[in-house]
């Protein structure tokens, strides 16, 4: 079922938590809602679920207006950031809850409920915990029970609020891949909130980046990563270097380096900012033929198979971060304190402090 958010606003007092957001989540898609803390991700999810009433705007499920529909009638599965399992019920009772509270006419009989709950518990690989209580489970297990509980009522939409937020890095990585596989099996329209860009890029079909209650960019993960719509998205998705440049006739210059910026063809000698990811910085051991910046290597740190360099160029006051493979690093024979030449291989140029929706 598709979800359509149509010009939704939500204020708390005079604070605007959701600022005129319009979005459509397509049927069967797994979307990541990404943004810094306080950007309104949870609020948006709660508005979709009906736990929060928008001040204006409409929510439509599959084209039908659901704005005034009560939470309990919306068929949304909601997985809360802190699980919100029923403390006084066993794992089995938690998962069975949604089936047991159905009105008498629609309630499946005991044996059916039992089968369904056990099937779901094996789906989340926790059938052996059926008689335990939530406090006897680990965080990751609680998370999966919360998911099984939400799935039990066969929701048309699954909303997950930082489903892996409280877990350690390894468990997170496992669980998000598991979520991806699960989604591929059951294909329910899902939206999950995260402020971890890696998580968003890895498992989702689509990423929505939010900031201060607004949508900054919306698109496929690769596209968001490779073509951030604005400096905010650039900075938010991973590390990035910022170079001050002069734009002239579609070319941005940083010292001797010339970068193509065709979208600024009409500009003459305007200030610009070039954003370059650390792995898009080419490093050379000696002066390069087609122009490069001279720099000194201030710090070398090896992180697994990659080597991270902190360099300082002659003209720049701040440090440039570069990343290259260990192999390449050894080939170049670079040393901490030594010289190097750098050149941005791939960059995006923006005008300072203006929003630019260029692709």
């Amino acid at each position: 079922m598709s979800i359509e958010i149509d010009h939704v606003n939500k204020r708390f007092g005079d604070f605007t938590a959701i600022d005129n957001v319009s979005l459509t989540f397509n049927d069967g898609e797994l979307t990541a809602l990404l943004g810094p803390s306080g950007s309104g991700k949870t609020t948006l999810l709660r508005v979709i679920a009906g736990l929060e009433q928008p001040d204006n705007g409409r929510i439509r499920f599959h084209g039908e207006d659901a704005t005034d529909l009560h939470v309990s009638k919306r068929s949304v599965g909601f997985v809360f950031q802190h699980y919100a399992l029923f403390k006084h019920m066993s794992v089995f009772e938690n998962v069975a809850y949604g089936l047991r509270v159905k009105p008498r006419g629609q309630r499946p009989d005991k044996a059916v409920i039992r089968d369904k709950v056990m099937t779901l518990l094996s789906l989340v690989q926790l059938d052996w915990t059926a008689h335990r209580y939530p406090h006897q489970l680990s965080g990751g297990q609680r998370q999966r029970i919360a998911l099984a509980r939400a799935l039990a009522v066969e929701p048309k939409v699954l909303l997950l609020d930082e489903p892996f937020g409280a877990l350690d890095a390894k468990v997170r990585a496992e669980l998000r891949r598991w979520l991806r596989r699960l989604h591929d099996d059951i294909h329910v329209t899902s939206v999950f909130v995260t402020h971890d860009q890696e998580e968003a890029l890895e498992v989702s079909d689509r990423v929505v980046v939010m900031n201060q209650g607004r949508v900054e960019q919306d698109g496929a993960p690769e596209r968001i990563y490779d073509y951030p719509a604005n400096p905010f998205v650039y900075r938010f998705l991973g590390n990035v270097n910022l170079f001050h440049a002069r734009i002239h006739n579609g070319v941005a210059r940083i010292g001797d380096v010339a970068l193509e910026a065709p979208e600024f063809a009409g500009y003459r000698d305007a200030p610009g900012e070039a954003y370059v990811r650390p792995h898009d910085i080419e490093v050379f051991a000696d002066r390069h033929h087609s122009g490069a910046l001279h720099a000194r290597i201030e710090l070398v740190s090896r992180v697994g198979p990659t080597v991270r360099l902190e360099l300082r160029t002659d003209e720049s006051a701040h440090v440039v971060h570069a990343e290259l493979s260990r192999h390449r690093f050894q080939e170049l024979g670079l040393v901490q304190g030594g010289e190097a030449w750098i050149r941005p291989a791939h960059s995006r140029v923006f005008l300072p402090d203006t929003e630019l929706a260029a692709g």
Partner: protein
Amino acid sequence: MSSSITAVPAEAVRSARWRRATEEPVWLKRSLIGLALAFLGLFLVLPLLVVLYSAFSQGLHAWAMAVTEPDALAAIRLTLLVVAIAVPANLVFGVATAWAVAKFEFRGKSVLISIIDMPFAISPVVVGLIFVVMFGSQGWLGPWLSAHDLKVLYAVPGIVIVVVFGTLPFIARELIPLMQQQGKEEEEASLTLGASGWKTFWYVTLPNIKWGLIYGVILCNARAMGEFGAVAVVSGRIRGETNTLPLHIEVLYNEYQFTAAFAVSSLLTGLALITIVIKSLVEWHDERRARRAAH
């Protein structure tokens, strides 16, 4: 790594020294405990024994006569009636108030929280007088009441009203922090799973506040049975009609029927003891649950 290995014993030594430094000398500990026990013995246990001793000093038969005498039976009935009305009324008010305070944001919330405590802050006699002013024949509502042939003052309704007023804070006070601490996520989860508001209350909220609720009911019950000052003012002390147990005891005492007074007192004391036992059981259960939940 080696620094953290040496840091462990150093830390342990330091905390051991601190522990010794913060520990009081043995004589001080013993005399404080002794003082507390002596105090309890003198002001709680001894009076209790006196009540029981005096109640049965003329033998079991005299005790039974005193508690089954018509006026005493009337007082027992009235007291139970008052409790049977006041406790459920309090239950409804307490749960509703705690729910509103803990789960909703609204204007005047802090004012509500502070006025809940008012019945505890005002002297019971003053509470009684307030209601005399309101319902008395010279009072605000007096003429209207008598015009409709309703009797509040010097009758059961008046007693019930002052007892309800006096016990109002018990359950709300008990539940507000509990419900605030629990937040509303579980309720929200229940709603998203398709449960109605009523089912959510019944299956999720109530089990979560059950023990706090029982505790509040016990306290409320104890106070409702023992309420004296306010009841004394509004009841008119009509023997066999508007005397609750505490008032009946006072009447007996004033008439120098000491044995009878103590016999009836032993009933109230017995009820109090039962209440304390139940309360301890609830507390014990609560603690065990809290410990379990902490894991």
